[in-house]
Every structure is written in structure tokens, then in C-alpha cells.
């Protein structure tokens, strides 16, 4: 299992690294924006990071739903791994948004803004999801409890995405819509390429995390079997039962 899986992870990592490098080159070769100047290049990492975070939380919900039907531990591993990577990319999205926000908006973060506040809440909820997983030792209980949160928490994803349309926000609305794009073709090409590159990075990290999850389970199973063999089963009438039934 591990040899082929390891090779797959290495190949995916190498491919993701190569495509990401190309994505960086494309992002840096875009012309400066008329209003935001070179700061606009941050969109090539900010938007793909948030896209991957939404995708990851969607996969967590999917894994949680399928686990509830199948009770196959693999789906629980998928949900947990995806939430972990989703948290990583939400942090990246928030940090890059803050770095961009200070020179363009004049603030790093504003709790009054629906997009920023809802993204921060999204992050906190999924950090809570990861804490819940760590707090439960029994794998069945862990899968059961976290699957409920994994299904409920995904409701936030459309709320975060549409918050800029539903409420008055400092954050701009979507640049890519079903009817077309408001971006220059050169900038759009770089953004779309980076969306693909970040998705590939997600797939590579997921494959690495899934291999680790399987190894963690194998170690846990070995620990349980080692602990089980160390327990001496009680025997009826043994010295530890002295007094019971003697009279």
C-alpha cells in the first residue's frame, strides 16, 4: 500500500510544485491594475486560496454524509483531512486579504464587513471541528460527532460567498460571473490558471494527508491490540473474587 501511495504523493507534489511555479510566473507577468496597481497581483493567490478552502469544506461535508451511510472509516479520514487543509487555505485567504486590504482599503481587517467577519467565523468553526476530532479518542465516536458538525458547518460556505451580494460590503463583488468577467483577459488567464494550480496543490496535500491518516489508524490499531494482550482475563473463583460465594 505505502510504496505505490508514496510514489503517487511524490508525483503529485512535484506536479503541483511545477504548476504553482508557472502560476507565480503568470501572476507576476500580469500588467499593473489602473486603480490597485501591482497590489492586484495578490488576487492570484487570495481568490484561489479561498476557492480551495470552499472546495475542501465541501469535501468534508461530502465525506461526512457518505460516512453516515456507509460507516466506512475511509470517508471519515477524507472529511478530517479535507477540513485540515481547508483551515490552512482559509488562513492563507485571510492573511493575503489583510496584506492586500491595508494599502487598498486602509485597514487590515474590519469586523463590520460581512465577507471578512463571515470568513473569520468560518475559520473558527472549522478550527473547532478539528479540536472536536482531537478531543475524541474512540474512532467511531469521533467520526459520528465530527460528521454532524461537518455537515452543518458547510452551510457557511454559500453564506460567505454571497455575503457581498446580500449585504453592503467593503469587499468587491465576484469578478467572474455566469455572464462573463469584469477582468482584463491577461489577468483572467493568470487567475484561472492559479485556480487550477491551487486545486492541484489541494489534491497533492490531500493524498499526503490520507496516507498519514491510514498510518495513524494502523498505529492506533497496533496500540489497542498490544494493550489487549497485556490484560489478564479474570477467572471465576480466582483469588481476586475471594469472599464472593464462599459462604
Amino acid at each position, binding site marked *: 500500500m*505505502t510504496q505505490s501511495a*508514496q510514489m503517487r504523493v511524490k508525483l503529485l*507534489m512535484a506536479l503541483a510544485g511545477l504548476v*504553482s511555479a508557472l502560476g*507565480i510566473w503568470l*501572476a507576476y507577468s500580469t500588467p499593473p491594475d489602473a486603480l490597485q*496597481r*501591482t*497590489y492586484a*497581483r*495578490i488576487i492570484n*493567490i*487570495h481568490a484561489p*486560496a479561498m476557492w480551495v478552502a470552499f472546495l475542501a469544506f465541501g469535501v468534508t461535508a461530502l465525506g461526512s454524509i457518505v460516512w453516515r451511510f456507509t460507516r466506512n472509516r475511509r470517508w471519515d479520514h477524507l472529511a478530517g483531512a479535507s477540513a485540515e*487543509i481547508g483551515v*490552512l487555505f482559509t*488562513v*492563507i485567504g485571510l*492573511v*493575503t486579504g489583510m*496584506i*492586500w486590504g491595508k*494599502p487598498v482599503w486602509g485597514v487590515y481587517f474590519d469586523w463590520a464587513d460581512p465577507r471578512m467577519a463571515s470568513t473569520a467565523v468560518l475559520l473558527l468553526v472549522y478550527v473547532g471541528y478539528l479540536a472536536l476530532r482531537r478531543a475524541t479518542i474512540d474512532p467511531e465516536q469521533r467520526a459520528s460527532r465530527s460528521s454532524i458538525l461537518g455537515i452543518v458547518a458547510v452551510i457557511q460556505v454559500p453564506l460567505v460567498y454571497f455575503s457581498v451580494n446580500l449585504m453592503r460590503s467593503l469587499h468587491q463583488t465576484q469578478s467572474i460571473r455566469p455572464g462573463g468577467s469584469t477582468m482584463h483577459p491577461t489577468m483572467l488567464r493568470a487567475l484561472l490558471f492559479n485556480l487550477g494550480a491551487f486545486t492541484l*496543490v489541494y489534491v*497533492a*496535500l490531500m493524498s*499526503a*494527508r490520507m*496516507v*498519514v491518516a491510514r*498510518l*495513524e489508524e*494502523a*498505529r492506533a490499531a*497496533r496500540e489497542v491490540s*498490544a494493550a489487549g494482550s497485556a490484560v489478564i482475563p479474570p477467572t471465576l473463583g480466582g483469588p481476586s473474587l475471594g469472599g464472593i460465594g464462599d459462604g
Partner: protein
Amino acid sequence: MGEAAVVNVAYIVTFGLILWYATRMHLRHRRLTRELDQTRD
């Protein structure tokens, strides 16, 4: 800080965090494989 430097910081933070996570997974994988091999012996 200049405009280009701010953009560079954003890119360094992003790919730094991704590399940190990938390295963490790699090290955990190596440690778990070693532990499992030891208990097998």
C-alpha cells in the same frame, strides 16, 4: 514598504504556509513508518 515588497510578502506567506504543511506531513509520515516498522520487529 514598497508595492512590490508587499506583493512579495503575500506570495512568500502563501507558499511558505503550504510548504510548512507539506513538510509537516512528510515528517509525520516518516515517523509513523519508523514506529510501525519498529513494532513489527
